[in-house]
């Protein structure tokens, strides 16, 4: 083979390589969801079952709840699957979804150093936050308009504590649950997390669960189809198929069967 042919063949190979995957006839929908559902591994467990049953590929874009809802507002997703009831109801009120459907819940836990300098251990989240504020112990906030962040701010408000980034012990990372946990682990600070993400998180350092079981820590997930009248291109049939499936008994059972470290992580509670 002379030089000319080698060059031609390698150029063709490069061009051919760059065009693979051009055609994709499979039905698909885009679901914007949260880092907690993706990073806990729930979708990896849940979606293959749905795909096998319906042949619809589900593409999940996992970001904070606030951003997931914004993606829905812009019509860049067909379905939104998040956990901030207040924000979701606002989404419906703005007309971007016709209705909000409850799917499952899990709970938040307060994570902190095993030594627990602020003595928060127990089952009262608001009391714990008060103690952290009094002790000025390092606290990591997600600060990213996520469902977890919104819940965290509600607990601070309920505890009667005003928090802001100007306080040196309150650190806003503006990131997803995992990166925030990494920061908390590195700084040995307190952080609010959902149980599922904590169970799958591997870089725990010296951290452990310090507060759990408070009924206020209940975390509800809701799913919404992006309104086709606002965004006509939304894949209404496939999106609705997804919603119908996750609230069906098969979908709910699949959610319940997802275990992390032997513990069930998400509890289905769609209304029958």
């Amino acid at each position: 083979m002379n030089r000319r042919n080698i060059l031609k063949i390698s150029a063709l190979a490069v061009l051919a390589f760059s065009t693979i995957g051009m055609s994709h006839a499979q039905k698909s929908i885009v679901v914007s969801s949260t880092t907690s559902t993706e990073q806990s591994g729930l979708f990896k467990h849940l979606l293959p079952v749905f795909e096998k049953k319906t042949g619809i590929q589900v593409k999940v874009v996992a970001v904070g709840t606030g951003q997931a809802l914004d993606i829905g507002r812009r019509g860049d997703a067909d379905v939104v699957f998040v956990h901030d009831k207040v924000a979701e109801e606002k989404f419906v009120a703005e007309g971007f979804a016709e209705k909000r459907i409850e799917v499952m819940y899990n709970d938040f836990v307060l994570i902190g150093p095993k030594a627990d300098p602020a003595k928060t251990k127990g089952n009262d989240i608001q009391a714990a936050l008060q103690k952290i504020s009094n002790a000025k112990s390092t606290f990591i906030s997600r600060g990213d308009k996520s469902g977890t962040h919104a819940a965290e701010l509600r607990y601070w408000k309920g505890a009667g504590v005003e928090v802001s980034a100007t306080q040196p012990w309150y650190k806003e990372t503006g990131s997803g649950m995992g990166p925030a946990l990494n920061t908390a682990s590195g700084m040995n600070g307190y952080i609010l997390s959902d149980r599922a993400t904590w169970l799958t998180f591997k870089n725990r350092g010296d951290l452990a669960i310090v507060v759990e079981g408070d009924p206020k820590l209940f975390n509800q997930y809701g799913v919404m189809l992006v309104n086709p009248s606002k965004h006509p291109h939304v894949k209404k049939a496939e999106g609705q198929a997804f919603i119908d499936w996750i609230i069906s008994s098969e979908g709910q059972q699949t959610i319940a069967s997802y275990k992390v470290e032997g513990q069930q992580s998400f509890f289905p509670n769609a209304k029958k």
Partner: protein
Amino acid sequence: MLSAFHDAFSLLETLDSNLLEIVIVSLHVSISALVIGCVLGMPLGALVAIQNFPGRQIVIVILNSLMGVPTVIVGVAIYLLLSRTGPLGELNWLFTPKGMILAQSVLTTPLIAALTRQIIEDGWRIHGETMSALRLPIAAKLKWLVWDCRFSLSIALLAGFARAISEVGAVMIVGGNIDRVTRTMTTAIALETSKGDLPLALALGMVLLGIVLLANLLTSVIKSFAERRYG
């Protein structure tokens, strides 16, 4: 930290099919962006190098600045462009490899153009007078200069490839890091790090490094082979 490296090696040994998918997406997107950058950037850079036109200095400044534009800015810009509510929404390229290729092409094209311009300009300084004396048409001048500077230009291509394959900001925002569809090595590393799974992130990092090293090796082998054969 040593244990993380040890775990990383054992992970690589199993050669996960998921890992293979991620590598293929990365290569598909970055090589496509490289090809586009080469096809658009090289002629542009060469033309700016030898042709004098009003505003030439401004074009040079813009090209040089775009070389170092933060990738997240390109990501946000392309995201807004491709969003359904944006001007190119009808293309449906958001959260797909096509959108990622577009974003990375915006990164590679100015880089290759700027480097090409500098390299060709140096060549022009040497051969310019001769070519003008021979009254060669512009296409011939360009072809000849590109051929003459081919080894330096291969470095420009390598730089373009490196910029594309190692960036995370643009592909994360435009691609959405969707499992099996738009997850690249860099976005996978970011994801696994954020999950605290550092061994897997390191393993992916080593694969990425290996690919970049391989590309460099390939270029130097081709270069030495061609040099020996054709001088």
